[in-house]
């Protein structure tokens, strides 16, 4: 830890280093994210989580696709793969199966994971491949300048829905649960502490886990939709969010308007054999594994 300067009235003591600095690639910071973006908060929670769990950092692998969120793989100081748009999950599948010792996490955006990448999500969850998927849902494609995506709420304005979006968005936790993810939760970046704990949980859990993080994107979503800057979007979440672990799937729809709540929580936590476990079981029965 660093040497600390002397403080004076009101002014906070200033230093040069942060206790999580070793988890980040210092030579790549500052990150590219806009002021008020929630991605930095999500990354801090993740950094804290991978530091806290009982898995050596060198056995942790972080993957992402393309997008603002996708840049996270480039900042966290573990082996990391920034793949093609939408393809982090199958890449992670191959990596995990080839070396089952690794703790493999895919951290990417709503567009990356659920627009172009939706099918891979389905199949990895179905197979119960032992990887963790963390999705930052900012209701738009941030990286390309704020277009509609599969989570954009009905009526929302984006650069490709100038008259309001007319597509029903996904209900991500429901989708994940319906295909069989063994752990499913949702938080906003305001729920940092819950989020961090959820991440710890997911990292340690066997099987396909899914965390949705609702995050402010002032540039692509907040401003065009009168949610304002990051701070204002978080205020909105403070007001509207409700923790409800036993919420019905319907309640998890996100409307982002009127008095509709933003329901967060821990929705699924169950067990079923992973891909590799079932493989082993099947091959063992045929005498192909001892």
């Amino acid at each position, binding site marked *: 830890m660093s040497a600390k300067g002397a403080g004076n009235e009101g002014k906070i003591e200033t230093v040069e280093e942060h206790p999580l600095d070793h988890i980040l690639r210092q030579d790549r910071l500052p990150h590219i994210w806009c002021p008020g973006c929630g991605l930095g908060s999500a990354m801090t929670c993740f950094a804290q989580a991978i530091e806290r769990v009982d898995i050596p950092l060198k056995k942790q692998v972080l993957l992402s696709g393309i997008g603002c969120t996708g840049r996270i793989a*480039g900042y966290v100081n573990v082996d990391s793969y920034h*793949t093609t748009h939408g393809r982090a999950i199958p890449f992670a599948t191959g990596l995990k*199966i*080839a070396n089952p010792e690794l703790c493999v996490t895919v951290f990417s955006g709503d567009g990356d994971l659920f627009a172009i990448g939706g099918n891979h999500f389905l199949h990895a969850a179905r197979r119960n491949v032992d990887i963790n998927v963390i999705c930052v849902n900012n209701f738009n494609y941030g990286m390309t300048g704020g277009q509609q995506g599969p989570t954009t709420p009905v009526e929302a304005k984006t650069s490709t829905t100038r008259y309001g979006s007319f597509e029903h968005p996904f209900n991500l936790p429901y989708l994940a649960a319906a295909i069989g993810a063994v752990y499913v939760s949702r938080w906003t970046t305001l729920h940092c502490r819950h989020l961090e704990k959820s991440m710890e949980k997911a990292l340690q859990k066997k099987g396909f886990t899914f965390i949705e993080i609702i995050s402010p994107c002032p540039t692509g979503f907040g401003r065009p939709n009168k949610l304002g800057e990051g701070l204002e979007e978080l205020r909105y979440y403070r007001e509207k969010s409700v923790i409800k672990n036993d919420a019905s799937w319907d309640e998890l729809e996100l409307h982002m308007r009127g008095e509709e709540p933003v329901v967060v929580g821990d929705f699924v936590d169950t067990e079923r054999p992973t891909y590799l476990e079932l493989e082993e079981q099947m091959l063992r029965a045929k005498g192909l594994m001892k």
Partner: protein
Amino acid sequence: MKAVLTGSHFMLGDIACAEGALAAGCKFFGGYPITPATETAERMALRLPQVGGHYIQMEDEIGSLAAVLGASCAGVKSMTATSGPGFSLMQENIGLGIVTETPCVIVNVQRGGPSTGLPTLAGQADMMQAKWGSHGDYEAIAYVPNSCQEMFDFTIKAFNTAEKYRQPVFVMADEIIGHMTERVVIPGPKKIKLVSRKRPKRKKNYLPFKPDKDLIPPMALAGEGYGIHVTGLTHDARGYPVIDEETQHEMVTRLIEKIRRHAPKIWEFEEVMTEDADIVVVSYGAASRSAGRAVNIARKEGIKAGLMRLITVWPFPEKRIKELAESAKAFVVPEINMGQISREVERFASGRVLSVTHAGGGMLSPEAVLQKIKEVAK
């Protein structure tokens, strides 16, 4: 069960390809069935669990290649096998493999195209796609077998070359060879020369994309503690994205030079009676078996024809073609396509190249080749 099935076999081309992969040490296959490459996948599904490897059937070809790249990054020799439609879908991730320098083998058992085309019949019309199918500039490496034995042998070569130069390598087979059964002799495991990717010697100062003098960087694997970052964005020696002209120049030219500089070692071809040939027939894969017969007949009829059979179509053996262009009067290029590699030959012999084309769906007839030979012999 053994990975190397030493002995003499009467074996389907596609199966020989799978056995070649196993002999080369392949332990991961990520695939999606497609005629006429399915038998390779099916064989791997049967055999990999016997040798401690993994077969996974992915949801599509995009996922297949992604999984293969992922497995390779974890340090396992990996492959996939497909045909035209799947090869088209793999193009984006081929680029990722090139730029991240991830070794793997992609087998394309070519069928008739375009589109769904002729699933059960042969074509060789993906040859240019192997070079140009993904966006951006890169050099491709492609082996083209013309027998079941070569399905076995060249798959091993492909793995070795992929590992050596750290990039995806293609085996551009075709339905005729893939669905043909011939004698395949598998040598003892010790007789099979295997190459593995270069690995970093120490962590200190290791930069994942800093090449050695041979332009090839040693490869750190996931989970070894190097804390590497690997990206499809333009990146510097650290592997960090840098979005500018200079980094792009450095990265792209190195990746291209990596292959071009070693091309003389990669180039493989077989020449028959070319020493004194007026007419050089350039061919490859199934078509080269017709070409061979045609050249034999032509010689019997007193025409000085010779055969240059390409084993690596990419990198294209320019140097040798240039040399031949100095003495040969003309080239005849038979292919089961509408004229693809003939265009490469033209680059070195404008106006002296005759293409023998076939739209696909069957074997090129030796007579058609012979006719062109005679035409230019006049």
